């Protein structure tokens, strides 16, 4: 905006007016951005504050004094702890599926003939645009029916909430990882691969010693993204989880049935954890970026 003023010819009267109006606009823009970020962080800050208030309802006012008892209540809540452990297991499972699937999908894209490539691309990214509830429902009914057709017994993975949730979440998280790998592969110099092959390396060696090291930053950020997305997922999980529970489903039922500051305490923990996770992700991304600049 400031550059506009310099390009204007110094006219009397009108120039002064214009200068003022751009200043007003600049000020309003700054003010708007302030409000925008208040909207972004205000709710989270308020929620965090209620976790430390000694009040049976999660409220900021009246402030009855600082307490940590809601954290204590949280840790002794066996449902929460069980859900948390299940969420960790599911997150790990999703990483194990979504990272290789996404990589395979990305590697295949360049090898498919251009006539079917656009159809292929639509298929592999469509899970991102499909509402989460629909992915959950289709996974549930499909594997339930597969179990029925194969006469699997009730203890088998076909009816197990943890397995179904891993499969359901990996369906769309693989598409996210695919996009990460595609972005990285665009910068891959395929002559490296050819050079290694010419020098007598086997295909397996090329894969592990040329491609995988090049993709390492993308592999790490894909794994982090897959884990975090899985951890906070609700829409798909709520259909596939069946008799089991994850942290989000326990949380949702708690919030719906009656609200307690223990949920705020959990929020404080999760916000701090995600802050750490996001910071790690950001550092890795920056390192990747500087690496590109150097290379």
């Amino acid at each position: 905006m400031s550059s506009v003023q310099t390009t204007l010819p110094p006219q009397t009267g009108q120039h002064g007016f214009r200068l003022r109006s751009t200043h007003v606009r600049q000020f309003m823009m700054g003010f708007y951005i302030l409000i925008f970020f208040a909207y972004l962080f205000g709710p989270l800050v308020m929620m965090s504050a209620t976790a430390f208030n000694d009040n049976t309802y999660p409220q900021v006012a009246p402030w009855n004094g600082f307490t940590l008892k809601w954290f204590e209540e949280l840790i002794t809540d066996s449902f929460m702890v069980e859900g948390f452990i299940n969420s960790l297991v599911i997150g790990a499972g999703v990483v194990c599926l979504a990272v290789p699937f996404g990589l395979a999908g990305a590697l295949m894209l360049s090898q498919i003939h251009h006539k079917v490539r656009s159809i292929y691309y639509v298929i592999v990214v469509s899970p991102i645009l499909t509402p989460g509830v629909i992915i959950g429902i289709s996974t549930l009914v499909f594997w339930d029916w597969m179990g029925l057709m194969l006469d699997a017994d009730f203890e088998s993975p076909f009816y197990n909430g943890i397995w179904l949730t891993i499969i359901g979440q990996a369906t769309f998280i693989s598409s996210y990882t695919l996009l990460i790998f595609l972005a990285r592969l665009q910068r891959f110099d395929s002559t490296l691969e050819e050079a290694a092959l010419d020098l007598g390396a086997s295909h397996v060696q090329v894969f592990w010693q040329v491609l995988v090291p090049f993709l390492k930053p993308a592999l790490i950020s894909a794994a982090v993204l897959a884990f975090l997305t899985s951890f906070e997922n609700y829409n798909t999980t709520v259909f596939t989880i069946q008799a089991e529970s994850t942290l989000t489903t326990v949380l949702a039922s708690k919030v719906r049935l009656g609200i307690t500051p223990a949920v705020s305490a959990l929020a404080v923990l999760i916000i701090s954890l995600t802050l750490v996770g996001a910071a790690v992700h950001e550092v890795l991304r920056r390192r990747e970026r500087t690496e590109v600049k150097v290379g």
Partner: protein
Amino acid sequence: MNNLLLPIASLIGAGLVILGLMFYRRSQHATGSGFGHFLRRNGVFVSSYLILSLLGWIFFMIILPQLYMVDFSFSHNLPPSKIGGPEDVYTTQNYEYLLFGSPGSEDAFNWLHLKVFLRTILAAVVVTIIDLALCYPVAYYMAQSASSGKLRMMALCLLLPFWVNEILRAFAFRILFGSGGVFNNVLMGMGLIDQPVDFIRADVGLYAGLSYAYLLLMIFPLYNAIESLDHSQIEAAKDLGCPWWRVHFEVVMPFAKPGIASGCTMVFMLSCGALAAPQILGGPSSLWFTQIIYQWFNTGGNWPLGAAYALVLLVVCIIFVMAVMRLFKVSFGEIIK
């Protein structure tokens, strides 16, 4: 009837694989057959990894479950022992239920569910418009005015709330808008009201919470689109005497069309399919369409009916994406970016 699906699906799958290999061969120079070339290019290990992964993911996780859900939505609600039996025939009763209600009902149409459906779509459109209006100035500022240090700071700040659990974000809005919440306390403290206002019943909390949840999916596509606009174009328009609002409507917005389309699509889809925020922030009298689907799967115990409802939602979403693509003249690839 249901057991027809597996043979049909395998046929489709085999057809796709053969088609893929044929195209593969045609795409290469005349160096042997398609599959042999694929093997030679990648080696046995990588080839089998690629094929197995894609079979597992695309076939068993994307295509087959969706196809089976379509099939399932046309079936009766039967106990497992009767599936595959003589009563297992196709029916459109699940779709008729959404339109006309149960056969014995008095009304001509199932207004209860149809109203919820229409309100969900309408509310999703409103949320999309709110998000577009909120995000456009910030995205413009980030793309055209902010210095690089400020930009990095802002991007980081925007990303952080996105990583906080969906349920907790909705819960935060419940704390703000509840009867003993922050807003009521502030308003009563200022003496503007003497009774707490029921923001939750008025759905204020729901709209605020939903708009909040999907802000980032609007901001980043907008930012990406506006960022590639050459700043001298804006300056040229201003030099030629264009008022600032016309610069936005006639220079920036037409240029940022793919970004606007992409952001609107994402926000609309996600708010249509939102479940947590309506469950937590929805008033006692207002239902979201996904909540009805959820009820059929849980307390209602009628999975085929739930699947039919879910499919209707999916079809509406697909129509919306197609309409946006047609309206803004953008391709599918541009929406995903």
